[in-house]
């Protein structure tokens, strides 16, 4: 947070709020966001159905495209940016993402290994 940036904005921005822009600029932001999101969606649907690309790469490509599209939504629709007046919103988002990755990643990781480390079913039945 430099003094320069502090002088420019003397207050924080609420999430979803933009810095002072004209109506035309704001509409243009949404149009750009919509175009990017449509492009990414179309790519996702195309990738999922095509056999032009190496098949094992498809899941990774779909996840990368999904994360990219979520980023587009955050920046162009929710106006969560890296600007100095947006620090609180970004920090809250970062913590939310940490929890999301812990929950999803942790669950998938543990459950995959739990399954692999379990004795076969007939062993469990014999133990009882």
């Amino acid at each position: 947070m430099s003094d320069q940036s502090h002088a420019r904005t003397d207050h924080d921005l609420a999430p979803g709020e933009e810095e002072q822009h004209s109506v035309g600029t704001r509409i243009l932001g949404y149009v750009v966001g919509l175009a990017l999101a449509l492009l990414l969606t179309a790519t996702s649907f195309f990738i999922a159905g095509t056999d032009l690309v190496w098949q094992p790469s498809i899941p990774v490509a779909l996840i990368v495209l999904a994360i990219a599209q979520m980023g587009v939504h955050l920046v162009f629709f929710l106006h969560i940016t890296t600007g100095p007046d947006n620090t609180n919103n970004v920090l809250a988002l970062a913590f939310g993402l940490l929890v999301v990755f812990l929950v999803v990643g942790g669950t998938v990781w543990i459950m995959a290994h739990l399954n692999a480390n379990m004795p076969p079913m007939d062993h469990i039945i014999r133990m009882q």
Partner: protein
Amino acid sequence: MAMTATAGHAQADPHHIGVVTEHPGPAPKRIVTAYGFWIFLLSDIVMFSCFFAAYAVLSGQTADGPKGSEIFEQRNVAIETVCLLLSSFTCGMASIAADVRNRFWFYLGMTVTCVLGLIFLVIELREFADLVARGYGPSRSAFLTAFFSLVGCHGLHVSAGVLWLLTMMAQVFAKGFRADVLRRMMCFALFWHALDIVWVGVFSVVYLLGSAA
């Protein structure tokens, strides 16, 4: 950012007595409300992540029932996705119209958002009804339980969003663009955009990955 302004006075005057003129004061109510709602939305996304995690673990447990690739129709999902994406855009237009106090564009944007949201819900309900009629209800297999709870939870959020949208139109109609109505409108726009973000995860992970696998 309020922290930096007060840090210099913190030791000499911990209770900020006498620095009132230099202290920027509490954030405006608009920022406090939207920030609180942003925290709620993030916790809502954390809740969705639990459903996603459950789906990721259970998606293979079909109990000799149908696999995802056998029951998902990509054409319907594409229509749903486009509907939700366009409704996010029109919701943005409506919130711009609310900021400049333009009733006509506000009502138009909100109506289009509502219609697109309803189209999404109708397609989703027909998909659910069709699956249940074929005997593939949520009790058929663990995969279908996880599928119905994840997609159904998102559908419930969209339904609540549509009700909220109609409430906002009624409030603007009855009370005009008052400050408190505008704050609610801002929270609604955040909610609607966040639902679209969750849907990006749903169509990518459930429908597209499910059909690809």
